[in-house]
């Protein structure tokens, strides 16, 4: 296997970038679905900013992932089927209500910020550059989602109830965040990305203290769902991709 800059193989670099890029692309799509449906116009702006930040990250990561075999961001986004997507299951879950959307956001963005921090200090310069920019954005996403989780958790009886339901709904997908693929483990050995075990503790700490602050309880049942990183998705992703890809695929040789 050809060695990359930091001794990271081309295949491992591609797998790592693809996983992170698909995370951003799929979550960006979900957030963009909120357009014209947000609970207040100010939040319309905020959700669009989250979606735009993540779309920007997705484009950088997919461009990097496609470099090795000469595929550009659009070929990767529009010409892979769901079994070839590497995103976390958590991110393809439907938006549900605003409670589900903000809960998903805080679970993921907290993870992403920690991951980017490690990666920004890592040995693979292009991954590090993307992470250094992304970490500022992730920080903001975390702040925004935390403010909302607190307010909804302690707001009204109804908002509290909805937050409880959201947490129960999404909690099963959280263990997958910390399950490394083989590529990830090798990249971590090379110092290009942080070992996922190293960010699990700080993540758990951050989420637990937020939930305590917000008067919410983390479910007692185990978080066992996984498979997204290996291309084993929920039914939701197929529909998401059908919508996202249909126009592009209807005009195979067109440029836009």
């Amino acid at each position, binding site marked *: 296997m050809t060695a990359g800059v930091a001794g990271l193989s081309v295949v491992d670099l591609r797998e790592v970038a693809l996983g992170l890029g698909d995370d951003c692309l799929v979550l960006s799509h979900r957030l963009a679905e909120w357009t014209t449906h947000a609970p*207040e*116009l*100010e*939040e319309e*702006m*905020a959700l669009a*900013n989250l979606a735009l930040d993540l779309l920007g990250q997705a484009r950088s990561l997919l461009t990097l992932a496609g470099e090795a075999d000469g595929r550009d961001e659009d070929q990767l986004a529009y010409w892979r089927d769901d079994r070839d997507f590497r995103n976390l299951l958590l991110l393809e879950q439907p938006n549900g209500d605003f409670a589900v959307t903000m809960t998903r956001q805080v679970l993921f963005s907290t993870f992403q910020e920690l991951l980017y921090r490690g990666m920004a200090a890592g040995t693979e310069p292009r991954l590090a550059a993307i992470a250094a920019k992304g970490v500022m954005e992730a920080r*903001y996403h975390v*702040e*925004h989602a935390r*403010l909302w989780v607190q*307010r909804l958790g302690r707001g009204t009886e109804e908002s509290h109830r909805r937050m409880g339901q959201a947490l129960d709904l999404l909690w099963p997908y959280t263990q997958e965040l910390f399950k490394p693929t083989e590529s990830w483990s090798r990249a971590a050995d090379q110092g290009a990305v942080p070992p996922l075990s190293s960010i699990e503790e700080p993540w758990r700490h951050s989420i637990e203290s937020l939930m305590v602050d917000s008067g919410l309880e983390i479910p007692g049942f185990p978080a066992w769902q996984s498979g997204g990183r290996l291309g084993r998705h929920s039914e939701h992703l197929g529909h998401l991709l059908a919508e996202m890809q249909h126009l592009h695929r209807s005009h195979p040789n067109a440029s836009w």
Partner: protein
Amino acid sequence: MSHSEDWPLWEVFLRGRRGLSHQHVGSLHAPDPELALQNARDLYTRRGEGVSIWVVRSTEVHASDPDDQGPLFDPPSDKAYRHPTFYKVPEDLQL
């Protein structure tokens, strides 16, 4: 139904770059100061304008009288006590 339930209004002030003072750029609605700051960032700095944001509850802004006191403009009604007609006195009294 919803109009009495609007979130409070906030005035947004932006420092364009270091060395400049904060300038009023507009307003927005938010339930509290923290979200007001975030909303201000989303609304007024998404093209990279500004390095520092202030938000002030609109009800906390106290305004002076309008500069123009030409015939067109009435005296502001919020300081009616400055005007003699504000005070009721018996009609037959000379004050």
